[in-house]
């Protein structure tokens, strides 16, 4: 009886261990290479749309049917919640002259489980630069009572500098590791970095 109990416990532990490996699988640089074309498309189209009317976009539910849209005007930032196919979304886009390509962006984000896209500013030698910040949600089953992790990608307009361990540096002559949202980022390419974080924004 006792040995049967130990067997059950051993099987459960093994299942938990395997489960935890499965949830981490998405969080590898493979994700970027597997989805490189879509990610690059999203980055380019978002930069172009942002130039016309700054905004950020978030999927607020696990089924990717609801979004939160932050529209930045000269005087105020407006935060609205919509269902993806709601008529109100179209009305709001027209009112604030948001480009129609946002619909395509929403579909592309949904296709790669990207839940948040935003433009962040950062400073190098007192000069303002911008990066595109994307968060990917792991929708696979994950263990209960373990905090959800997000795969964060940052896209830069300029080549970045890294140390021998692949950590993003503050600049060519600055050997200090650059943090974004208090996180250290690792190299994927010269212009793209990633980290794994407990927060998606």
């Amino acid at each position, binding site marked *: 009886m006792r040995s049967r109990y130990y067997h059950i416990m051993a099987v459960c532990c093994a299942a938990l261990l395997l489960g935890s490996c499965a949830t981490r699988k998405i969080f590898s640089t493979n994700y970027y290479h597997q989805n490189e074309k879509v990610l690059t498309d999203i980055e380019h189209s978002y930069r172009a749309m942002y130039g016309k009317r700054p905004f950020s976009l978030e999927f607020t539910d*696990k089924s990717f049917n609801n979004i939160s849209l932050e529209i930045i005007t000269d*005087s*105020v930032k*407006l935060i609205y919640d919509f269902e993806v196919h709601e008529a109100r979304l179209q009305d709001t886009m027209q009112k604030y002259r948001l480009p129609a390509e946002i619909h395509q962006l929403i579909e592309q984000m949904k296709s790669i489980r990207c839940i948040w896209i935003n433009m962040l500013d*950062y400073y190098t030698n*007192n000069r*303002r630069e911008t990066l595109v910040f994307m968060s990917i949600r792991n929708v696979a089953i994950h263990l209960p009572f373990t905090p*959800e992790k997000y795969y964060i990608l940052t896209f830069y307009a300029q080549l970045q500098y890294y140390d021998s361990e692949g950590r993003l540096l503050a600049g060519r002559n600055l050997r200090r590791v650059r943090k974004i949202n*208090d996180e250290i980022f690792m190299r994927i390419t010269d212009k793209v970095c990633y980290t794994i974080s407990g927060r*998606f924004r």
Partner: protein
Amino acid sequence: MVVATPLEAAAGANADTTPMSTQAQAIALLDKLGTIQQSPHWPNVHPAAFMQNLRKDVEQPFSIYEGRSTNFCGYAALSFLPLHYDPLGFVGFMVKMYQEGKAVYGKAYFEPSKEVKRGAGRLVFKGELDIRPADQMWFMVLADHFKGYLNIFDPHYNPGDENRLWAAVNLAKFCRMIRTLFNYNVSAVGSDLFRPGVRDMYEYLSERLKTGHLALFVNNPGLYRKDHHKLKVGVPTHYIILLNVEEMGDRIACTYWDYGGRTMQLLSPDILKRIVFGIIHITRKSADAQ
């Protein structure tokens, strides 16, 4: 050049009156000062960047920004008052602090620690705060001087403490800072752990807004969702300045200041009630007030 402190500037006025000045007066003072010398007290704060930062604070008071991932939101929120209603007092204090390394603001005498003086101007990776050394100085001076129970475990500044308990602001400390520095009447409902017993939040907030300024102590993840954790600790973590509330159908449109700008967000009455832990009502003191 020595600049009068707000106390000196207000000399002759009723001592129990909230000091007031205009943007034009503050800009005139900045113009008069022109360029200033590098301060030996603040080795990492460049004088030109310091003056440029002060000018931006005065000209665009909504732009003051607490920085990314810091605990400076309480200090940035209370800056709303001097930057809008007494920018001359603010500029006077900051210039004196820069030049002499110590200064008086309202009823408080500030003489920051050496670590703070070395640290100001060196904060990086905080977004626009990186290039606003005067704001770094202001936030760090306040955090160094005013202490609440949250600061007991981290009372002295070390690099990186801007993100930690050293800079945290509990509700009582927030109210005390406004009373001490700017001489306003401050009353608050709510606490650091429990929500205020307000039945109709919209009604309460809109009534209070008619008679003064409102700061709200809110649960930040409730306002800006940052994760999908099901088990959440419901405590307040963020200060905002409420500018307007308006009913829009079944939602409440809240316009508030935080993170260097104004935001208008539609919230359900239920969410609004759930995220607000402290409501701070701030009114001017005037000689003819009852």
